[in-house]
């Protein structure tokens, strides 16, 4: 699949997704869990704002000197026996990778999760050659078996599916005979994929962070699949977006600390792996042949523009997890592999306004994304800027913001919605509430709560209280 995941119109996609009640329930509970865990980790770490500022300064510095760090990276990868290919377009990247697959007469290829390989539509290019391509991340594997359904979340690609649906997919496609218990499904996939790792000709990975000084690549997973993908096949191909680079191990460490906390609320994920070049002499496992493919595919056009800060992104999806619009419409509504606020900013830049001009309106501009971002990308400002550019070009907005907000269920125009919203205020604030005070508020409350505590919404809201009082209540 390429970056664009749907030819359906934006409004149709949204209406369709809004009817998917399982997805909506799954997304809102996932958002809450992700958010609570992220805030807990940020709190435990301490000095979170300073960490964010450090993350930001590292990412800004790298972007301002990107040519130098890519030069240094390529020199050091080459010294350790790796081949580096710079691809300006998706086509150049897939052509090169096809040529490696052909040269190695690859029949089977195992892959660990990578957004950039989705972006350049790599699987289709390899399948065209007759290669069998197997995704090994559990979520990605589920979607692949389900006729290549697109991911709905950057970090948890199969978030929109429930365990019964997943059980049925394996049952229908592969004759899976056990229950819908996640442990049983995972054990089944473990056994199924074990043999694939051992017999694959090529392993393909993405890259969380390349390290310029040592020529290493860093992979972050919980499942350990990236380790098997890189340890067992004889040839390894790593595909990276050109901006995913840091100067040294020391900056990698800082960004990984921000990434794992922001993405999944863990201090570190189970596996952080840094791989440098081909395997060392005498090593049994690890690749004999290593190719690093560095992809531009539209990124350099963002450099030097007012949208440059989006290239700071480390793909943690904290913005996705904080976004009220994503909560209502889910990942597939965006029609791009990049969903949520980061997708709203990035998709039109990489894929053009023609296909993605409605996306900047899939935002309330509330700023919760900006506050959640661990590297301080001013997301809501960039979204706003997109709207200005679109209106400047077209003379009018492509969609009515007011109607959209209503469709998202985010308007305050109806008394029912208003009632629901004020009733929700108390439980929604619960994760931030301590002794009836909100001391670490999200979104717009944050600026206030940084300086002082905000009184928690009453369990009784005003309308309820007034009604109660009219009936002769005490208070």
């Amino acid at each position: 699949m390429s970056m664009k995941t749907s030819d359906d119109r934006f409004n149709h996609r949204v209406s369709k997704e809004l009817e998917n009640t399982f997805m909506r329930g799954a997304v809102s509970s996932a958002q809450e869990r992700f958010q609570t865990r992220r805030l807990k980790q940020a709190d435990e770490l301490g000095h979170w704002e300073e960490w964010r500022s450090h993350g930001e300064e590292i990412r800004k510095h790298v972007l301002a000197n990107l040519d130098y760090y890519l030069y240094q990276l390529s020199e050091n990868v080459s010294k350790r026996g790796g081949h580096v290919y710079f691809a300006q377009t998706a086509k150049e990247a897939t052509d090169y990778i096809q040529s490696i697959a052909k040269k190695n007469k690859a029949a089977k290829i195992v892959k660990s999760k990578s957004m950039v390989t989705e972006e350049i539509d790599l699987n289709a290019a390899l399948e065209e050659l007759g290669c069998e391509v197997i995704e090994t991340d559990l979520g990605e594997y589920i979607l692949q078996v389900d006729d290549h359904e697109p991911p709905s979340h950057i970090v948890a690609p199969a978030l929109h599916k429930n365990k019964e649906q997943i059980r049925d997919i394996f049952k229908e496609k592969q004759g899976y005979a056990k229950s819908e218990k996640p442990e049983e499904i995972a054990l089944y996939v473990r056994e199924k994929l074990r043999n694939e790792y051992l017999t694959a000709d090529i392993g393909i990975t993405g890259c969380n962070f390349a390290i310029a000084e040592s020529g290493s690549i860093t992979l972050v997973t919980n499942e350990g699949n990236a380790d098997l993908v890189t340890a067992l096949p004889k040839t390894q191909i790593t595909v990276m977006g050109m901006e995913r680079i840091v100067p040294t191990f020391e900056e990698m460490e800082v960004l990984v600390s921000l990434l794992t906390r922001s993405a999944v609320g863990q201090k570190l994920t189970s596996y952080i792996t840094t791989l440098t070049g081909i395997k060392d002499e005498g090593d049994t496992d690890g690749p004999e042949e290593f190719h690093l493919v560095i992809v531009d595919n539209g990124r350099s056009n963002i450099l030097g523009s007012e949208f440059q800060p989006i290239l700071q992104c480390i793909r943690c999806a904290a913005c996705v997890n904080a976004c009220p619009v994503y909560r209502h419409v889910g990942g597939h509504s965006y029609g791009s592999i990049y969903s949520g606020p980061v997708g709203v900013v990035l998709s039109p830049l990489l894929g053009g306004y023609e296909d993605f001009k409605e996306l900047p309106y899939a935002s309330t501009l509330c700023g919760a994304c900006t506050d959640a971002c661990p590297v301080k990308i001013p997301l809501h400002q960039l979204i706003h800027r997109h709207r200005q550019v679109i209106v400047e070009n077209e003379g009018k907005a492509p969609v009515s913001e007011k109607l959209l907000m209503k469709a998202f269920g985010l308007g305050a125009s109806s008394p029912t919605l208003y009632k629901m919203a004020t009733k929700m205020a108390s439980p929604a604030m619960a994760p931030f509430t301590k002794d009836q005070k909100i001391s670490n508020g999200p979104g717009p409350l944050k600026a206030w709560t940084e300086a002082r505590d905000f009184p928690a919404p009453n369990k009784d809201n005003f309308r309820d209280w007034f009604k109660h009082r009219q009936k002769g209540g005490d208070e």
Partner: protein
Amino acid sequence: MMAGTIENRDVFLSKIAKQLGRVPKTEMERPTWQYQPQDRVLKEATKDELVEVLVEQCKNIHTDIVLTNTANLPADLQKVIENYGGQSVITWKDKRFKRFGLSSLMTEQWPQANIQLYEWDSKQPEENIRQAEKANIGITISEITLAESGTAVLFSSKDKGRSVSFLPENSIILIPKSTIVPRMTQAARLISEKVRTGEQIASCINFITGPSNSADIEMILIVGVHGPMKATYIVIEDQ
């Protein structure tokens, strides 16, 4: 080692430099940063306090932890092996096992108890993978241990195969107490220094934090996916 090829670099980097409004750069000094929050974490902690942090963190990462000394290590290791059902063990080829006093356990007691031991052998590449794949337990040793996150850092080499910590169902990692540092910051600095002094770093450096897991199905945590299903750390008093 033969250097790899580099293709299309000049045109690619020129475009970037042009977008940034200057000529391409191939020299630069190391930047100085305005913020350094990472040094504050567990700054004043003693080694014993770091052990406490590690023990506490193991609860969050579904990992058992045993504290011992070299005298009790064989008995304590044996308990963990039995707990995992014995059968077959794969280890690195590493002199430290002998130094920790494990020779008699591994080479005398295990054969008697019908526990098979395979030691990684760089001369038998295919056998290594075959053995790692069928072994019930893999034993490795942490080079640097991160208290904050509960992470063992492993360096690969010809005698220290990557697969030993990934393929067996159960993973035991020996942690010399002297290897414990506050967090990843210290490990990153140590490795960076090696890079700067021109030392060749291991082709694979693993930061391993507990057994493999996933929350890809309904956000429900599953422990044990592609890597080990269970993990135990054994901290050895070595100073």
